[in-house]
C-alpha cells in the first residue's frame, strides 16, 4: 500500500510544495474581541467556498474568485461571499444554564442544486442553512409606484403582472431547519452521511442520527452514559461518518481509543464492530498519560481506507483493516513532553487540536502553539513546521520552515521551547479538497496559503 501512496504523491507534490502567503482575513489589532475568535474552518466539497465560524455565533463564507488567466498567481483569492449570525446566546431556564453561541462545527452538504447548504452547530442546536444567490427581482405594482407611493385606485384601468428584472447579485443565507433538543451534553461533532439524507451529531456521551429533513426526531445510536455518573470513565470526543460506506462511522474517546460501528448490524450501535487502540508503552507512563492520549479529532482519508487521529502530542494514521496499532505515527511537538506540568497548570493540555488531509491523502496538516502548524508528508516521511504570522504577510512570500530547539544547544534559526507563546495556538485548519490551498485559523485571523506557482 505504501508504494501506492508514493505514486499518488508524485503528482500531488507533497512536501516539495513551497507554500506562500496568499491572504489574511480578520482585524489586525492586537487586542482580540472574544466574539471574533475563530472556532471552526471548513472548505466545501468543490473548494470554491470556505466557511468559518466564530465564538460570536457568526458564520463567514468566502468565495474563491474565478480564475484570472492573465494573472494565474491570483487564482486563489478568497473574498467574503456571505456573513450571517447562525446562533444567538440562549439560556436554558430549566437547567439554569447559559448556552453559548459559539459555532463548534460547520459541515457542508454535497451540492444538490444551484444553492449551497451547510450545517452549523453550537453546544446544543444544529441548524441547516441555505446560501443562495439572487440576481432578479420583481418589478411593477398595480396599486403603488415602485417607490412605494400609492396610486389612486380609481385610475386602475388594466392589471399589471410583475416582471422579473436583473439586479445586482445578492447572496442570502436563510435558516432551513433547526435541529434542537437532541442533546443533553455539548455537541462536539457533526458529520454528513454519504447517503446524502442523514447526518450524525455527537456530544460527550451520546451520538444521534438525524434525517436532514426531519427536525422533531432523531435516533440515538450510541449511548455511553453509565447508569451511575460516578462510574463515568470516558467521554466521546469526536465522531465521523465514513466517506463512502453509509453504514460505517467512527467515534473517538478521551481514553485514546477509536470505535468503528456498523449500523447494518443493529439499530443501536452500543457494541462496536472494531476497536482501534494502541497498547500503552509502560515506560512512558506518567500522571499526564491519560490526558494527552485523549483524541481531539478523527478524520477519514478521502479514499476511505485510512483514518487519522490527533492526540495532544501526535498524529496517528490507522488502516481500517488493522486495529491493534496505527500504521503511521507522527510527533507534532514532542518537545512539549517535558513541559506537560506547566501546560497542565495553564490548561493548555486540554486544547483540542484538529487535523486534516490534503486532497490525495498524501500529506496531513495539524496545528501547534506559537502560531506554528505542521505538514506531515506520509510517503517521504518528512515533516515541516510553518508559521502563520503577520511578519510573512507579503504577497506571494514563501514561508520559511521553522525549527524548535528540543534541548541541548540552540542552533541558529531555532526557537527555544521556553520562548514559545502558548496563547497563540492553531487549532483549526482546512485543506482545499483538490488544490494545494490551505486555510489556517490563528486566534482571530484566517490565513490562506497556497502552493507557489512558478
Amino acid at each position, binding site marked *: 500500500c505504501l508504494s501506492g501512496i508514493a505514486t499518488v504523491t508524485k503528482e500531488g507534490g507533497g512536501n516539495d510544495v513551497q507554500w506562500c502567503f496568499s491572504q489574511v482575513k480578520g482585524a489586525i489589532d492586537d487586542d482580540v474581541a472574544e466574539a471574533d475568535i475563530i472556532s471552526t474552518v471548513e472548505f466545501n466539497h468543490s473548494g470554491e467556498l470556505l466557511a468559518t465560524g466564530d465564538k460570536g455565533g457568526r458564520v463567514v463564507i468566502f468565495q474563491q474568485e474565478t480564475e484570472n488567466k492573465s494573472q494565474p498567481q491570483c487564482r486563489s483569492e478568497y473574498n467574503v461571499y456571505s456573513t450571517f449570525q447562525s446562533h444567538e446566546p440562549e439560556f436554558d431556564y430549566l437547567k439554569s444554564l447559559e448556552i453559548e453561541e459559539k459555532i463548534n462545527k460547520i459541515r457542508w452538504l454535497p451540492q444538490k442544486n444551484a444553492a449551497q447548504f451547510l450545517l452549523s452547530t453550537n453546544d446544543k442546536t444544529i441548524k441547516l442553512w*441555505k446560501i443562495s444567490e439572487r440576481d432578479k427581482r420583481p418589478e411593477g405594482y398595480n396599486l403603488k409606484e415602485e417607490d412605494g407611493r400609492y396610486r389612486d385606485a380609481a385610475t386602475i384601468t388594466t392589471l399589471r403582472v410583475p416582471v422579473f428584472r436583473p439586479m445586482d447579485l445578492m447572496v442570502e443565507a436563510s435558516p*432551513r431547519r433547526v435541529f434542537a433538543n437532541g442533546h443533553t451534553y455539548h455537541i462536539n461533532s457533526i458529520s454528513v452521511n454519504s447517503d446524502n439524507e442523514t447526518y450524525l451529531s455527537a456530544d460527550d456521551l451520546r451520538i444521534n442520527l438525524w434525517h436532514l429533513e426531519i427536525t422533531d426526531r432523531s435516533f440515538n445510536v450510541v449511548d455511553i452514559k453509565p447508569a451511575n455518573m460516578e462510574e463515568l470513565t470516558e467521554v466521546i470526543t469526536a465522531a465521523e461518518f465514513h466517506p463512502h460506506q453509509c453504514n460505517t462511522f467512527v467515534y473517538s474517546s478521551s481514553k485514546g481509543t477509536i470505535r468503528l460501528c456498523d449500523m447494518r448490524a443493529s439499530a443501536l450501535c452500543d457494541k462496536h464492530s472494531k476497536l482501534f487502540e494502541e497498547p500503552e508503552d509502560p515506560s512512558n507512563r506518567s500522571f499526564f498519560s491519560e490526558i494527552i492520549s485523549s483524541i481531539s479529532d478523527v478524520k477519514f482519508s478521502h479514499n476511505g481506507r485510512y483514518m487519522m487521529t490527533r492526540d495532544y502530542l501526535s498524529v496517528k494514521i490507522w488502516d481500517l483493516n488493522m486495529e491493534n496499532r496505527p500504521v503511521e505515527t507522527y510527533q507534532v511537538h514532542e518537545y512539549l513532553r517535558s513541559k506537560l506540568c506547566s501546560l497542565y497548570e495553564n490548561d493548555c493540555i486540554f486544547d483540542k487540536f484538529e487535523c486534516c488531509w490534503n486532497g490525495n491523502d498524501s500529506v496531513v496538516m495539524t496545528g501547534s502553539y506559537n502560531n506554528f502548524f505542521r505538514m506531515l508528508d506520509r510517503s517521504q516521511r518528512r515533516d515541516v513546521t510553518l508559521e502563520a504570522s503577520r511578519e510573512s504577510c507579503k504577497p506571494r512570500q514563501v514561508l520559511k520552515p521553522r525549527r524548535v530547539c528540543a534541548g541541548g544547544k540552540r542552533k541558529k534559526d531555532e526557537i527555544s521551547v521556553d520562548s514559545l507563546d502558548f496563547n497563540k495556538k492553531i487549532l483549526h485548519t482546512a485543506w482545499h479538497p483538490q488544490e494545494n490551498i490551505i486555510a489556517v485559523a490563528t486566534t482571530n485571523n484566517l490565513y490562506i496559503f497556497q502552493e507557489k506557482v512558478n
Partner: protein
Amino acid sequence: GNRAAQPGTTQRAEGDDSLYPIAVLIDELRNEDVQLRLNSIKKLSTIALALGVERTRTELLPFLTDTIYDEDEVLLALAEQLGSFTVLVGGPEFVHCLLPPLESLATVEETVVRDKAVESLQKISQEHSPVDLEVHFVPLVKRLASGDWFTSRTSACGLFSVCYPRVSSTVKAEIRQHFRTLCSDDTPMVRRAASSKLGEFAKVLELDYVKSDIIPLFTALASDEQDSVRLLAVEAGVSIATLLPQEDLEDLVMPTLRQAAEDKSWRVRYMVADKFSELQKAVGPEITKNDLVPAFQNLLKDCEAEVRTAAANKVKVFCESLPEDSRETIIMTHILPCVKELVSDTNQHVKSALASVIMGLSTILGKDNTVEHLLPLFLVQLKDEYPEVRLNIISNLDCVNEVIGIRQLSQSLLPAIVELAEDAKWRVRLAIIEYMPLLAGQLGVEFFDEKLNSLCMAWLIDHVYAIREAATCNLMKLVEKFGAEWAQNTIVPKVLGMANDSNYLHRMTTLFCINALSEVCGQEITTKHMLPVVLKMSTDQVANVRFNVARCLQKIGPVLDSSALQADVKPVLEKLATDQDMDVKYFALEAISGMYPFISLTFQHISSQKHFNSPLYCFFFSFSPCCLGYRRLHCVIVKFFKHYLWMSCIYFIYSCIYLFIWSTCTFLKGSSDAHFPQVDMIL
C-alpha cells in the same frame, strides 16, 4: 367575473371597480408577508381568470417560473395550483405552457415541493395530446433526467411512468434508456428515487421489457452498496412480482427477495418484514408455503429487535392469508413456536407489537387451539412487566371474546386491570380508562359492579386532572351502556356525595360529572337529584366552585324543565351575577345570556347597581391596556348589545355623559392613571 375575464375589451377611462380586488391579489404575490403571498398564490386561479388565458400564458406564468426563491409553503401551494391550471391557460391545446414553472419547481431542494411539482406534472401529462407529449413533455423529462443537480434527476424518476404508455416505440426505447441511466446514478439520492419508482415504472412496461430491462435493474438496485437504496428495492420487488406470471417468479424475483430477507443490514430485513403481507399476496400460495414461511420464521427470530417488532406486527395478517388447506398446520408447527418465544422477548417493543395482534390468532385457530395454546400466552402477556404490553392485550379482548368468551380470562384480567389502574405513570392510567367502557360491555354489568366500579370512582379523585377528566367522560360512556337506572343506583349517589368533600377539586369533579351525566341520565334524575346539589354549591366559599356552578347550570339547562329553570336556577344565577369575584360574575352573566335571552330586566337591575357595567363604558375600557382583564366582561355585554340594539342608544347617551364626567374628573385630577385603581376596587 365575465367582464373581468377579458380586460382588454372592457378598458374604460375611469377605474374599474372589479379590477381592484384582483390588483390587490397580484400585488400581494410579492408582498413581504409570507401569509399574504400564500393567500394570493392560493387564489391564483382568480388572478388567471381575470387576466384571461392569453395574459396568463404570456405574463403570469413567466413571472411564476421565476418565483422559485420563495418560501417552501408558497412554492408548495404554487406547485399544487399549477396541477389544475389547464383550463386557465386555454385548455389542453396550451397545457405545455405550464411546464416551465413546474420544471423549475421540480428542481428546488425541498422534497415536499419537488414531490408536489412531480404530482402536478403527472396530472397535466394526461392532458397533453400524444403529439404534445412527445414535443413538449418528454423533452422536459429528458432535461430533468440529465440535469446537473440530483434534485432534478430525482424528480425525473417519477415522470417516466406517466409518459411511457402514450409515446411511440422509439421514444419508449429512449425513456427506458434514461431510466436505466438513473438507476446507476452516482448519487444515492437518485438511485433511491429510481428504486422507489421502479415498481411504478414496471407496471407500464410491456411484459417482455419487464423481464429484459426491469429485472436486471431490480437485481442491481437490490444489491446496491448503500443499504438505503437496497431497502427501497424490496418494495419494487413486491410490485414486480405482481406483474410476472407465476412460473417466472422463481427465476426472476425470488433469488433477490430471498437475499433481501437475509441482508446484512437490518434496515433491509426490516423492510422485508414490513412489506411481508404485500409480498405474500404478490407471490401466491405455493411460494408462500415453500419460501415465505421459513423466511418469516427467521424474521421473527431476527437478532435485531426492530426487525422482530415489524415481523411480530404481521403475525396475524400473515396467518390469515395462508392458504386455507394448510393454514392450521403451518401456524401450529412453524409460526406458533416462534410466537411463544416472542412472548418472553427481551425487548418491550417486540412484545407490545405481538400483544397488539396475538389475540387475532384465536379466530383463525378456533376454540380448542386457543384454549390450549394461545390462552397461556395471553396470560403471560397480561402479567408482562411493561404496561404497554398489558394494555395491548386488554384493548384487543373483543377478538378472544368471540371465540372462547371472556370468562376464561377474567380471573387473570382483573389483577392486570387493577395494576394498570394504579400505575405510577398517569398516561398508563389514562389508557386503561379509555378501555373501560369496552371492558364493561364485554364483562357485563354484574362483574363490573363487583370488581371495576370502585376503580372508576377512584379515578375521580386522582391527583392528575387529565385522569379526573377522563374518568368523568368514562362515567358518561358507562351510563350510555348500562342505562340511567343503573346510574341512579350506583354512580350518581357516589358522585353527589363528593359535593361535600373538603377538597374543592373533588367538589368541582362533582360538577364536571354532572355536566357529563345530565344528558344521558335524563330530566328526572337531573332535576330531582343533581340540581339541588348544584344549587347548594352556589354558596361554596371557593370562587372556582361557584363559577363552575354557573357553567354547570348553563350546561344542564337544556335538560331541565322550564319551571325548575324559572323557579330554582334563575335566582341562583342572578345572585352569582352579583358575586364579588369577577370570574363568577362573568360566567353567571354568560349563563344568563345563554339561557334567558329575554330577561333584560335582570341585566338592567345589575347594571343600575353599578353603572360601570354599562356596555359602552366597558367597551371603552376594554381597549385601555390597563384594563385588559375586563375584556371578558365586555364580551358578555357586547352579546347583549347585539340583542338589544335599541337599548344601546340609551346606553350610548348614558355613557357619553359618564365619560364626559369621568374625563373631566381625570382632567381636574391631572392624572388618568390615578383613577383606574379606584375603578378596579369598585369592580
